[in-house]
């Protein structure tokens, strides 16, 4: 299978007054056509910075992509000129954000904001673009779309605004949709509406999705493959069904252990991960999870494990096999 997007050894750092923050430390993954990849991790683990780096949306200074490639359409997005990358953003790869209020321009009507990429990227006339935009709003389930074109973002509720944002992102028929926690700010019943909508659109339009979230429940219902990030690294990656059955990294174990289940009737004590996530002022030469790990061995605080295949379609970066507590063979 030829991959649609191939990210290799991506590294992003931020220069701050207190030192260099190593936000992303060599992230590599592939995205196949039509596939949904879920990226999971806690705040500050580098999941947003990774995808923002791919689209070159990191503000510089203070941020800088210091290494790596992102091959899309046989070209490296990292090497493109500003003009070239502008042609990719919003048209071939588009993005939806967590906060639907702050990601719109409050003084332009949503009609203007949806038609802009159409005129910009597809060379449509204003009239064509408006027609297409109304069509898109209808697809994402906005009632009376042609009237609502003249409304401003603050006229919409949170869930409706997220629908408009999805319409805007999909209007140029992108090959990849990047979703950065788009349902985190929404209530569960509205979140369920948006997830249903995205699944439906994915099946009809056939785009690939990178879905960033901290909610392992959303990933289970939506993604084909999952990558878990910690401290700027992907520490485990697998097909979704394989992952939930056979997760191997102690951090994945910890994440799932600290989640209660709404559908089960057991009252076991939650098993939290002790300690705190590391501050990334340095890129450690040992396993970044070692200080919080229950299975820590001597080797863990000396040498950093690489992300290596443990079985077919399953990669993990850990020296220990949590089933035996001994070093992996």
């Amino acid at each position, binding site marked *: 299978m030829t991959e649609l997007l191939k990210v290799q050894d991506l590294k992003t750092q931020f220069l701050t007054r207190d030192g260099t923050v190593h936000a992303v430390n060599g992230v590599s993954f592939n995205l196949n056509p039509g596939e949904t990849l879920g990226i999971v991790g*806690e*705040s500050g683990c580098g999941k947003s910075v990774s995808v923002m780096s791919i689209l070159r949306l990191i503000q510089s200074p203070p941020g800088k992509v210091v290494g790596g490639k992102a091959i899309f359409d046989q070209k490296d997005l990292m090497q493109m000129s500003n003009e070239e990358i502008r042609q990719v953003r919003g048209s071939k790869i588009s993005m939806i954000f967590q906060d639907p209020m702050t990601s719109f321009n409050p003084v332009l009507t949503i009609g203007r904001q949806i038609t802009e990429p159409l005129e910009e990227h597809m060379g449509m006339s204003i009239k064509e673009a408006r027609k297409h935009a109304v069509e898109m709003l209808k697809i994402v389930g906005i009632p009376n779309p042609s009237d609502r074109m003249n409304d401003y973002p603050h006229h919409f*509720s949170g*869930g*409706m605004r997220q629908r408009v944002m999805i319409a805007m992102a999909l209007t140029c028929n992108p090959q990849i949709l990047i979703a950065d926690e788009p349902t985190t700010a929404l*209530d*569960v*019943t*509205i*979140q*369920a*509406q948006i*997830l*249903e909508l995205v699944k439906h659109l994915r099946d009809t339009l056939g785009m690939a999705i990178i879905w960033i979230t*901290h*909610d*392992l*429940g*959303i*990933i*289970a*219902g939506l993604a084909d493959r999952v990558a878990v990030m910690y401290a700027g690294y992907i520490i485990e990656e697998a097909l*979704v*069904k394989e992952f*939930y059955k056979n997760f191997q990294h102690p951090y994945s174990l*910890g*994440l*799932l*252990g*600290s*989640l*209660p*289940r*709404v*559908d089960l*009737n057991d*009252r076991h*004590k*939650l*098993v*939290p*991960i*002790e300690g*705190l*996530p590391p501050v990334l002022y340095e890129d450690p030469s040992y396993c970044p999870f070692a200080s919080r790990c229950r299975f820590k061995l001597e080797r863990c605080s000396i040498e950093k494990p690489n992300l290596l295949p443990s079985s077919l379609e399953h990669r993990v970066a850990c020296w220990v096999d949590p089933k035996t507590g001994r070093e992996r063979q």
Partner: protein
Amino acid sequence: MTSSDDVLLHVEKLVKYFPIMRGIIFQKQVGFVHAVDNISFDIHRGETLGLVGESGCGKSTTGRAILQLQKPTSGQVIFEGVDLVTLKPRELRKMRRKMQMIFQDPYASLNPRMTIGEIIGEPLRLHGLANRKESDEQVVVLLMLVGLNPAYANRFPHEFSGGQRQRIGVARSLSLNPSLIVCDEPISALDVSIQAQVVNLLEELQQKFNLAYLFIAHDLSMVRHISTRVAVMYLGWIVELAPRDELFSHPLHPYTQALLSAVPIPDPEAEENRKRIILEGDVPSPVNPPSGCRFRTRCPVAKKDCQEQVPEYREITSGHFVACHFAG
């Protein structure tokens, strides 16, 4: 279940409306936000009542109205046999020792200019229960209790992470030895791995001191984990209240059913086989709540009756209350 003399808090027909004013100089009242409308429930000693609902349903207002941080419009809040609504400020202040609050935002709820020792010790000194030296000793005990190093007492809030700050908030609420703590979304600002740490701490403290919690949250899986009984709110009403396992295994109100089916489960196979009830539209405005049943505009089983008749909040089986014409 527990006998009636175990009731720590009894809330009867609690109502809280917020007036909407128009005009700058000649202000005129033009309407009300019906934040909490006629709700009744009990909390027993040592139990956790989970209060769930979506944003704007009135769950935080309920918590604040119980503590009299916002004066209820009408209704009674009877705590240890005393109606708090009618108390004078001085008497109320005495009662406040026994009921404390933990807030959602661990960043905004701690004074950035006070050391955490001062923050935790302040309630003791304000209530005249300890002098400086005694309160310092008490702070050490409290910090150890919530799992923080007592040597941190001289540090400022910004030196701590979110989870640690929430522990500081817990220590502060415990300093007066309360019998009820209102936890207003205490974990929703925290990361998953840290949430479990704080929830485990709350459970340990509950067992140690026989605390009662009103646990306000929108995360249903966490509520199922921590609660003894659960109340579901929608647009200012309690639509269903039941013991935890009863509510989660036999939800009777269509809103509860939809809410439960909307929570993602971290198991791909369970996700595939689930029947999801997707609610249409958004929550209506609490300024003009729908007539009759407030849920009828989004209800998948609503009939014509629901438009006219307010559903009675009634007990279907022992301890299981529902406000729906068709339940039971």
